[in-house]
């Protein structure tokens, strides 16, 4: 099938280093001594642990419950005993700890009761929920919960479903082997995604350096009689980036600020499709994945590895050379050195590379930028990395955003070609995290300011309410007095009318009212008292409003001199800094 392919700008061609690990079939990694299963393995909410130390769990048993819609469940990768639910170091460049369920395998690897689902009878919503409950997440590296991507845009028709089998990073061959050996299940999984998204076309993109995988996928598509297109795309890093593959296959460019579904396209990794099929057709949650073990090792190959396997134990299977001095998780372009050998394999772990100076020669020292523009030429997002570098270096973060730093996908092409050996991506990560930190600080300060202002408002309101209450009491007393006076007057009038001599000092209006109406005098006087009270309340309200108006100009800054303004600004700045600190104090009140 001939198809018009598009190109993305930029890209680089690092040595692929794939042949080391793609010659042998997938091997099953043996049970490790213990499994450290992090609860937070996907983007979104951290699953809540549902087991505790001492519990016996079966393979596939739920151990972490999805927290919210964008979150995916976590399961026991084998049967055994929960040793602890505790903090352990994560496979993350930060080296920070996170909550993990540590399981000691009992060696039986006994599954929890599970079986195929009646897929044909399932409502789309039920399928999505089952995928969430099965812990199906994007296995291409981003680990976004898959069910969250399986809803088409309400306004834009779904044109293309892209299946990513490009695997553009050097060294990594796990998707290659998966497609070679398990193509049929991958294609069936794609069928599930197709059913949920109802796209017009399904395009499976595979880099043209994997002809065996492409052939296997084509055979599976034909065997299952699916209308999917298997397309070989030129080998050019980062063709396997979701946005780049979408561009190559459809010509559409998804900007950073948009979802791909807004452009009528969605993208999944082949391994994700495979796990989705296992979850539906066998009821198996995601408890293992394929991991390429390569680099400075004797026997590079792909392993089916239980989630939670300590990386050091996995690496040993490939017999690392003695000069190995670290483990890189992911590929050489975007991967990172893990903090130690104990960190576990997680759902996002597609590759381990034994690091040594032989495989990855140490970098030459960083030189000044000569603005050669090589980085801009290779940037797949058509950014100007050297400009962002100047501004990141100068900590001029506003400018970095003007140059679209958040469109950077950190693919590393710019660093790869830089003749000055500048670790550009590091500068961009630094700038991004600084911007995020500042945003958080600003939000905290804004929150504190809002709370402070609300407190002020509340104090004022309470004061006003108190004043009103006092005014009411005063008015009531005044009314009472008036009523007494009126009653006395009425009594006098009555006395006068009955011919009795009396004082003529009663209020003229009460007299007039009394004369004009036949209502009993007592009622009249109450009405008057009420009026009086109302008048007093209005007066109090007006006084309050006036007080507020008077208070306002104090805050106003219309008529201040420059020096005064500066002083005010200084005070405001100090207040802004102090405000967050004041928060806990406020809480303890």
């Amino acid at each position: 099938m001939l198809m018009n392919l598009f190109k993305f700008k930029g890209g680089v061609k690092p040595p692929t280093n794939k042949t080391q690990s793609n010659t042998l079939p997938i091997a099953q990694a043996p049970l490790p001594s213990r499994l450290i299963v992090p609860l937070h393995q996907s983007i979104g909410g951290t699953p809540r642990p549902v087991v505790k130390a001492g519990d016996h769990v079966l393979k596939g048993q739920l151990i972490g419950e999805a927290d919210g819609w964008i979150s995916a469940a976590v399961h026991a990768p084998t049967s055994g005993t929960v040793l602890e639910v505790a903090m352990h170091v994560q496979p993350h460049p930060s080296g920070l700890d996170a909550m993990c369920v540590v399981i000691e395998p009992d060696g039986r690897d006994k599954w929890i009761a599970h079986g195929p689902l009646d897929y044909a009878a399932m409502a789309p919503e039920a399928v999505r929920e089952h995928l969430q409950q099965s812990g199906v997440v994007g296995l291409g590296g981003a680990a976004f919960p898959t069910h969250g991507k399986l809803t088409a845009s309400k306004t834009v028709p779904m044109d293309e479903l892209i299946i990513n089998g490009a695997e553009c990073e050097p060294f990594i061959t796990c998707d290659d082997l998966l497609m070679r050996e398990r193509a049929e299940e991958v294609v069936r999984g794609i069928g599930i995604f197709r059913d949920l998204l109802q796209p017009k076309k399904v395009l499976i993109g595979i880099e043209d350096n994997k002809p065996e995988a492409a052939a296997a996928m084509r055979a599976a598509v034909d065997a299952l009689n699916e209308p999917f297109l298997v397309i070989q795309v030129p080998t050019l890093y980062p063709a396997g980036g979701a946005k780049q593959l979408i561009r190559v296959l459809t010509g559409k460019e998804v900007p950073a600020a948009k979802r791909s579904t807004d452009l009528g396209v969605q993208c999944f990794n082949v391994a994700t499709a495979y796990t989705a099929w296992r979850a539906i057709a066998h009821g198996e949650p995601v408890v293992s994945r394929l991991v390429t073990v390569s680099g400075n090792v004797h026997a590079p190959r792909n392993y089916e590895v239980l989630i939670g396997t300590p990386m050091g134990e996995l690496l040993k299977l490939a017999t690392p050379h003695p000069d190995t001095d670290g483990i890189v998780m992911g590929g050489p372009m975007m991967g990172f050195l893990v903090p130690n050998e104990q960190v576990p394999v997680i759902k996002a772990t597609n590759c381990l590379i034994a690091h040594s100076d032989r495989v990855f020669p140490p970098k030459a020292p960083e030189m000044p930028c000569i603005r050669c523009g090589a980085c801009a030429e290779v940037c797949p997002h058509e950014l100007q990395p050297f400009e962002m570098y100047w501004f990141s270096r100068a900590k001029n973060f506003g400018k970095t955003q003007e140059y679209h730093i958040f469109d950077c996908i950190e693919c590393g092409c710019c660093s790869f070609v830089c003749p000055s050996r500048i670790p550009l991506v590091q500068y961009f990560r630094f700038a991004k995290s600084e911007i995020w930190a500042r945003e958080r600080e600003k939000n905290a300060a804004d929150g504190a300011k809002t709370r402070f202002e609300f407190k002020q408002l509340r104090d004022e309101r309470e004061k006003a309410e108190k004043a009103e209450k006092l005014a009411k009491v005063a008015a009531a007393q005044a009314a009472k007095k008036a009523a007494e006076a009126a009653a006395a007057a009425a009594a006098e009038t009555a006395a006068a009318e009955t011919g009795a001599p009396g004082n003529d000092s009663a209020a003229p209006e009460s007299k007039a009212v009394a004369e004009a109406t036949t209502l009993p005098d007592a009622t009249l006087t109450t009405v008057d008292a009420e009026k009086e009270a109302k008048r007093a309340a209005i007066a109090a309200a007006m006084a309050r409003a006036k007080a507020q108006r008077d208070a306002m100009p104090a805050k106003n800054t219309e008529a201040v001199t420059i020096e005064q303004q500066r002083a005010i600004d200084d005070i405001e700045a100090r207040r802004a800094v102090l405000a967050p600190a004041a928060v806990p104090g406020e809480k303890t009140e």
Partner: protein
Amino acid sequence: MFAPAPFLLKNTSVSQVMLQVCIALVPGIAAYAWLVGPAILVQLVIATLTALIAEALMLRLQHKPLAMFLPDGSAIVTAWLIALTFPPLAPWWLVVTGTLFAIVIAKHLYGGLGQNPFNPAMVAFAVCIVSFPALMSQWPSIGLQASLIEQINIILGFSPRIDALSGATPLDAMKTALKLGEGGIDVAQLLANQDIYGNFAGRGWEWVAAGYLLGGLWMWQRKLITWHTPFAFIGAVTLISGALWLYNPAQFANPLFHLFSGGTMLGAFFIATDPVSGCTTPRGKLIFAAGAGLLTYIIRVFGGYPDGVAFAILLMNLCVPVIDLLTQPPIFGMKDKA
């Protein structure tokens, strides 16, 4: 151990980039030495040594690591461009003065490698032509029959500066002749003088320019430079010279003459393409180089200097920040908005 991704890097470095620029200059230098005289090789040596010593001194003064910066080759490229733009028999101290000015003031006082807003070699040329106009305008006639030893003696000042040296460049000669002729002499008559003019431009010099063109095309093929700068520079010179030539072929030389005379080819491929002081965006490069090409022609034909490349480049260097700012290309996914 902290080593951020990417772990794989392309085999490249600043030294490699600069070395390739030097290699690209070799065809032009070879033609120069063969056709004009080996004195240029002496000047290249003087300029290179001066540049390296000045660079080392400046790095030492700034406590920057010599081992890292001295081999980067940027000072050598500057030195070579200075030697190639100065008269080949200029006294040694003229080249030394120019090179010192370029390295010390135009480069290091602005912050060193990657920081200079002006092309250092062009600053050197501008400073010397303003300060020593006579010496900077004395170019040897092609027919000069002096041995290498004699040429070295002239450069070093051991021999008197003989009359044969006081020629002008073909470009300068034409301008002066046309001016003196006051319309009575036409370009065709002048070009017939085979002492000065060759097949399509200055005798001998035309092949030096062709050598630069060859080296420049090699740099483009090696992706050291993009097509934008040379294309726009040469295009602009061709357009303006062609337009005036069509308007009055008797008084204005044809585009071919202008392309292969003076510093057009050197400027288009080696000077305007300097990444540090030039524009970086594709559209910016086109504007920068077209502006430099136009100014080059205007200065060399209507101005008072023998050639216009140096001032044209320096004037356009001034415009780089604003051109770059206004020509930022649209990014991935945002092209409809732009």
